[in-house]
């Protein structure tokens, strides 16, 4: 079990008041709060050893380089990748996916090829492939979803075929909380000769992740959704692909030799890290990884499972509420999307804000999923390691209050 009260003490922001009430932060799927050690690591870099990396022959630069590269090793360890050179730092998940769409996609996708996605993908795992498909004359296919928000696997044989070149799916839905059975899907795609990218933006922060076990070819995730700073994303890739693919961005650091009319590429991983990277935030991300490692991802998952079960039970008793996504906590992470009959999610969000409860209302960058659910938006509460049952009670109480305010207006 997590010692949540001890954890909360590491997050100064959680002691803040919002609108005169103690803050209840339930928008963790958008971005999480950062513990003091992460903020301190960021400040320490700027204060004590700020220097560019891979360039200087002086001590400060060596120190900064070492700290930066240590985080690559930590990141590899965190997701079970044996080779740190297969970890590329990007700006965020979105850039990591785009890297694959440009570097791999422009090289290997041909007219008539098929790219398989799902109806629950975030825009960042839809739009890069739309751009690629338009450019190459490739075809996008989508795995549908069931009424309770799980992937519809019945007609999979028709969707994943010999024409499939890439399967790109999310480990966990940022709207429905659904944890997808990615492993069998990856195996299926591999059997047809396709490669697989996992959008781990929600998966990696909340579930234990072992890339060798998953056998995915690429995995993308963001530091800011797992206690780290904004501005750092990670792309893990199998070495064979990273070696074969052309670079993404060209410039300094990613080269080996440059002539006026051509250049050769640096070794992995630097081949994909053009220009001065986000040194400070990568280093601070290292502190976030240490923090999570100390708690243990099994414990993170257990805490969220328990909290989610409690929240589902309490919320389901609110009159007029509709909860989206799988019914069983085994199939879902700590994300709960809901709406209230006759109340727009925007208004729910506004009224909850007045109670100090921060949730998200909107389409959550999943417009096609909203269409599929036949809603314009949902209200979404999402949990992390520092959330408590008392906070869930505050949420539920506030949602009940919304229901009362709006039922006044019913004729």
């Amino acid at each position, binding site marked *: 079990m997590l010692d949540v009260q001890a954890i909360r003490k590491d997050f100064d922001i959680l002691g803040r008041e919002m*609108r005169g009430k103690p803050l209840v932060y339930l928008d963790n799927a958008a971005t999480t709060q950062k513990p003091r050690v992460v903020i301190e690591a960021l400040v320490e870099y700027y204060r004590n050893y700020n220097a560019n990396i891979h360039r200087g022959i002086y001590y400060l630069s060596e120190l900064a380089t070492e700290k930066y590269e240590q985080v690559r090793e930590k990141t590899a360890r965190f997701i079970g990748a044996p080779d740190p050179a297969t970890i590329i730092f990007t700006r965020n998940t979105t850039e990591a996916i785009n890297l694959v769409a440009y570097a791999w996609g422009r090289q290997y996708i041909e007219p008539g090829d098929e790219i398989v996605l799902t109806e629950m993908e975030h825009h960042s795992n839809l739009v890069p492939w739309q751009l690629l498909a338009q450019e190459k004359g490739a075809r996008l296919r989508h795995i549908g979803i069931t009424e309770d928000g799980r992937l519809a696997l019945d007609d999979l044989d028709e969707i994943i075929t010999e024409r499939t070149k890439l399967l790109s799916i999310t480990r966990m839905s940022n709207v429905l909380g659904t944890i997808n059975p990615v492993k069998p899907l990856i195996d299926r795609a591999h059997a047809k000769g396709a490669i697989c990218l996992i959008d781990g933006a929600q998966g990696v922060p909340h579930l234990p992740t072992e890339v060798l076990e998953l056998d995915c070819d690429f995995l993308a995730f963001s530091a800011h959704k797992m206690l780290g700073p904004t501005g750092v994303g990670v792309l893990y890739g199998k070495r064979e692909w990273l070696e074969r693919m052309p670079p993404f961005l060209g410039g300094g650091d990613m080269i080996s030799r440059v002539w006026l009319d051509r250049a050769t590429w640096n070794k992995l991983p630097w081949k994909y890290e053009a220009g001065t990277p986000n040194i400070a935030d990568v280093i601070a991300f290292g502190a976030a990884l240490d923090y999570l490692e100390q708690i243990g991802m099994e414990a993170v998952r257990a805490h969220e499972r328990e909290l989610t079960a409690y929240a589902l039970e309490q919320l389901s008793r609110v009159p007029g509420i509709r909860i989206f996504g799988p019914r069983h906590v085994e199939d879902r992470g700590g994300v709960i999307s809901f709406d209230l009959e*006759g*109340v*727009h*999610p*925007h*208004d729910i969000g*506004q*009224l909850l804000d*007045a*109670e100090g409860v921060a949730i998200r*209302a*909107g*389409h959550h960058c999943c*417009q096609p999923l*909203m269409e599929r659910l036949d809603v*314009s*938006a949902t209200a979404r509460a999402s949990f992390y390691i520092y959330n408590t049952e008392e906070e869930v009670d505050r949420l539920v109480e506030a949602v009940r*209050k919304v229901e009362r*305010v*709006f039922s*006044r*207006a*019913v*004729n």
Partner: protein
Amino acid sequence: MSDLRDLYQEVILDHGKNPRNFRKLEDADHQAEGNNPLCGDRINLYLKMDGEVIADIGFQGRGCAISTASASMMTESVKGKTRAEAEALFQRFHELVTGEAEASPGAPELGKLAVFAGVRDYPIRVKCATLPWHTLRAALEEKQETVSTE
């Protein structure tokens, strides 16, 4: 939620729940679509003009209480007004919800629309309140593309 009473006034909740003129005009001669990509709100506005006068107006779509109530009350206030009067009313309404300026001399009376004054304390909701009006302006100008508040 006392602090929110100013935003969610009884009248607004009522119009949000039971919007007036919530219908497609089959004989519309002007129409426009408005869209708030941030929250997915959408509105279709229909006008029937009699020369310079808005003879009939209707809307459809889905949105939050603020945008639905704003659309509903807008249709009530501009029906029978001229193009120029509607435009002047929008300007006055815009000043009200952004809190940017006091009524300029000669500005039209807002009447019931004054209940939207509370919106000025919630900057992100200004777009909700003004989306119907932007859409009205587009319909009057017969712009073809979708209006977006972004």
